[in-house]
């Protein structure tokens, strides 16, 4: 049970980072921390003590397999995470070019 709670704490660490950091790149990193805490959680859901890789061999059946579905979910979610991070970094670099800074306190044209 303690590992699940640690996952949730890692999630909150990411959220804290997003709220308190002022640097665009650090915000992106905090988002990644949040993302990976969720992936960790998903992998842990499917984990079974002393389970083997879920390749069913009819000739040699084994009792315990780890759950393959969360692993597939995590792989898919990692691809999505790659796309999100790439988009965020591209926008951050373009913002740097326009404003000459990564500080979000100075990037505030939009208000209200």
């Amino acid at each position, binding site marked *: 049970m303690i590992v699940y709670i640690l996952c949730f704490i890692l999630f909150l660490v990411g959220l804290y980072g997003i709220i308190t950091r002022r640097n665009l790149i650090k915000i992106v990193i905090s988002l990644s921390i949040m993302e990976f805490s969720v992936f960790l959680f998903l992998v842990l859901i499917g984990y079974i003590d002393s389970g083997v*890789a879920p*390749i069913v*061999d009819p000739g040699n059946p084994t009792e315990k397999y780890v759950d393959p579905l969360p692993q597939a979910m995590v*792989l898919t979610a*990692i*691809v999505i995470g*790659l796309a999100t991070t*790439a988009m965020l*970094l*591209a926008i951050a*670099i*373009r913002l*740097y*070019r326009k404003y000459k800074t990564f500080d979000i306190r100075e990037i505030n044209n939009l208000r209200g």
Partner: protein
Amino acid sequence: MKGMSIIVKKIAQLISGFIFLYGIYIIIHGHLTPGGGFAGGAIIAGAYILNILAFGSDAVNLRNKEKGSSLSESLAIFIVLMLAIFALFIGSRVFLSNYLPKGQLGEIISAGVIPLYNIFIGIEVAAAIITIFLALIIFKEETKR
């Protein structure tokens, strides 16, 4: 972008071929071992990026490379989609179904269409990561000037 020192260049030259081969290994064993299209593609892209970083390149050259990689990305993902659509006309006529013979468990050529998907997804992921890298680095080059 400038290249790095002679030590880095030589090491990159020696090692990138092996990384590339390892990526191909991961891709073609995707249906047997952990890994597959995405992981192998990322490794292949890593070999390529290592070369660009070590040897350096100018903006014009990078732009040409980006055109090529972005085109091959679109082509590869289009072929994946075509493989999936092809299933609508053959066998059980269901989208994304596995219409090739399954073969023996544990052989390289088995599991029907899955190795084909793996190969093309590997190409697409490698091309996509290279495109992202090139886009970011071209942008950096432009900003410097």
